């Protein structure tokens, strides 16, 4: 970078900042060192993050089928197309349904597990590991187990076997959108995979609640159990809870792996990213509309983040 030109300016400043440092010419200049440390990252960030975002914005205003260097400017046409496209808006509905199930369910389960594990005297580490272990699985591996063994639509799937013991007919869990059993498959998968991860966050927060609060509550006559949970534990976990909910919503927006693998070749249950994948990289290779969809999705995530950030106060520093 332009170290030689800025050197003269930076020198006095750095000399002020740390007078103990011996003067060692260019290599001692803090401007030179700043760029030495940060430029690999900043160059990469520019090329692989900022350029794609800019290019995508640009593409979204052009008719770009099968090409990434289009010439026909179409204004906001791609955006209107996407917003009128029932597939894309349908995928937003799919996401909303999904989030409505998965966010409260994961929140409740991970908090419940954390409360249980936190009360353990023996084998605490063991149980923590058991609930945390599913996080090691990829969504693809989990989808494979769910699709081909647990919720396999054939007779020898685990769920159908168990239902069979009670005389229930085989259920086509994924191959039939009506009734929409596939939601059960998808929600249980993500619940299993994520709960342990958020449990760790809740556990850390639980351990930070000062025990004096519980002692004070006991003196004031609060019964252990629901009352202390409602009036002490839950309010003390508020920061973590909001952070967890925000992370869950963002994660749900970006759901791709398990939907793509569980519902390959189906037309139902496509969340936004899967829809974008087929728009941009499928048969039509419509980069213009795909980019417009990505911009819309980014804006939506941004809005959700900012609205939630109001409650959260930006950042998770208060958990520590």
């Amino acid at each position, binding site marked *: 970078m332009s170290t030689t030109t800025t050197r003269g300016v930076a020198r006095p*400043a750095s000399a002020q900042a*740390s007078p*103990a440092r*011996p003067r060692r010419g260019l*290599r001692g200049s803090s*401007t030179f*060192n*700043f*760029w*030495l*440390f*940060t430029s*690999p*990252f*900043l160059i990469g*960030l520019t*090329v*692989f993050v*900022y*350029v*794609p*975002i800019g290019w*995508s914005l640009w593409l979204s205003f052009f008719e770009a089928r099968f090409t*990434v260097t289009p010439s026909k400017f179409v204004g906001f046409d791609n955006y209107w197309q996407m917003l009128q496209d029932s597939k894309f808006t349908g995928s937003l509905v799919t996401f909303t349904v999904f989030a409505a199930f998965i966010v409260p369910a994961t929140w409740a389960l991970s908090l419940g597990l954390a409360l*249980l*594990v936190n009360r*353990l005297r023996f084998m605490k580490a063991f149980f923590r*590991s*058991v*609930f945390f272990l*599913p*996080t*090691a*699985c*990829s969504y*693809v*591996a989990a*989808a*494979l187990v769910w699709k*081909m063994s*647990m919720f396999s639509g*054939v007779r*020898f799937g*685990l769920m159908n*076997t168990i239902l069979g013991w009670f005389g229930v007919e085989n259920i086509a869990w994924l191959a039939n959108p009506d009734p929409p059993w596939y939601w059960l498959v998808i929600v249980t998968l993500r619940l*299993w995979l994520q709960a342990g991860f958020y449990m760790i966050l809740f556990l850390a927060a639980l351990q930070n609640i000062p025990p004096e609060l519980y002692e004070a509550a006991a003196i004031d006559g609060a019964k*252990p*159990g629901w009352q202390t949970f409602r009036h002490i534990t839950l309010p003390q976990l508020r920061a973590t809870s909001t952070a967890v909910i925000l*992370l869950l919503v963002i994660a749900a*927006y970006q759901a791709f*792996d398990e939907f*793509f*693998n569980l519902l*390959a*070749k189906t037309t139902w249950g496509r969340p936004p*990213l899967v829809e974008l994948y087929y728009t*941009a*990289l499928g048969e039509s290779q419509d980069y213009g509309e795909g980019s417009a969809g*990505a911009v819309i999705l980014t804006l939506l*995530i941004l809005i959700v983040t900012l609205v939630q950030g109001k409650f959260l106060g930006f950042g998770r520093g208060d958990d520590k």
Partner: protein
Amino acid sequence: MTATVPPVAPVDKPRRVKRGSVIGNTGLYVSIGVAALLFLVPFYLIVRNALSTDPEITGENWKFFPTNPRWSNFTELFHDTTVDFGRSLFNSAVVAVLITVGTLLVCSLAGYGLARIPYRHANKIFYMVLGTLMVPPAVTFVPSFVLVSSLGWVDSYRGLVIPVLFSGFACFLFRQYFLGFPKELEEAARVDGLGYWGAYWRIVVPNSLNFFAAIATITFISGWNAFLWPLVIGQDPSAWTVQIALSSYMTNQVVNFHLIFMATAISILPLVFVFLFLQRWLVQGVAQTGIKG
């Protein structure tokens, strides 16, 4: 559950509390035990199916566990020619290791520079880094793919690794960490005549290995488990990672259950290892970052 403590009989107190807690404890351990068993069911299915024959898996009655566990499924998987699973395993290992090493190197240097080296525009640059956190990487896969394919990096390690190295989030975490690093240590190094670079490698990094290990485990896991980006980049089977190979099993015409589940078992084995033996750093990393991948 526990009875109200009688104010006049303090001798009675410890026993009653203890009895209540024994009942409470049994209930606690029963409910947590049931939950744990449910959580382990998918792992049971993987192991059971991986060591069975296809007739045992698809048979009329549920077989709890194969009578003779077939360890030969392991060798059979690597001789299977429909999907080159060994190759995908190798690709995943290379990619996940390169991503981990690269992210640690690039993002820690930048984090240190932003945290510790005085520069007039450092704040503006930091906001530029923070801004990228607003745009989730999964959403930019379309333009990123466009860029990487015009560089000719499709189906290559370069394409799988380099674009994911520049994580604004990792850089942010390192910056926050280095802000809290004791300044005295660096000043001592400065007195000894080391520059920023020397102090960083000889003093700062060796004293931050715990934090590096925490970020490394998390990065490795998300690199190994990544699906969308390898799916977009790995179009030729020779560039498939493990996750893409697994995904292809689900849509293949031929279904060999025992091989598919053996592959699944092998694919999660490295991470189970990480979870069991590096859990200290992992838990620390999760608690510090609060986010995965």
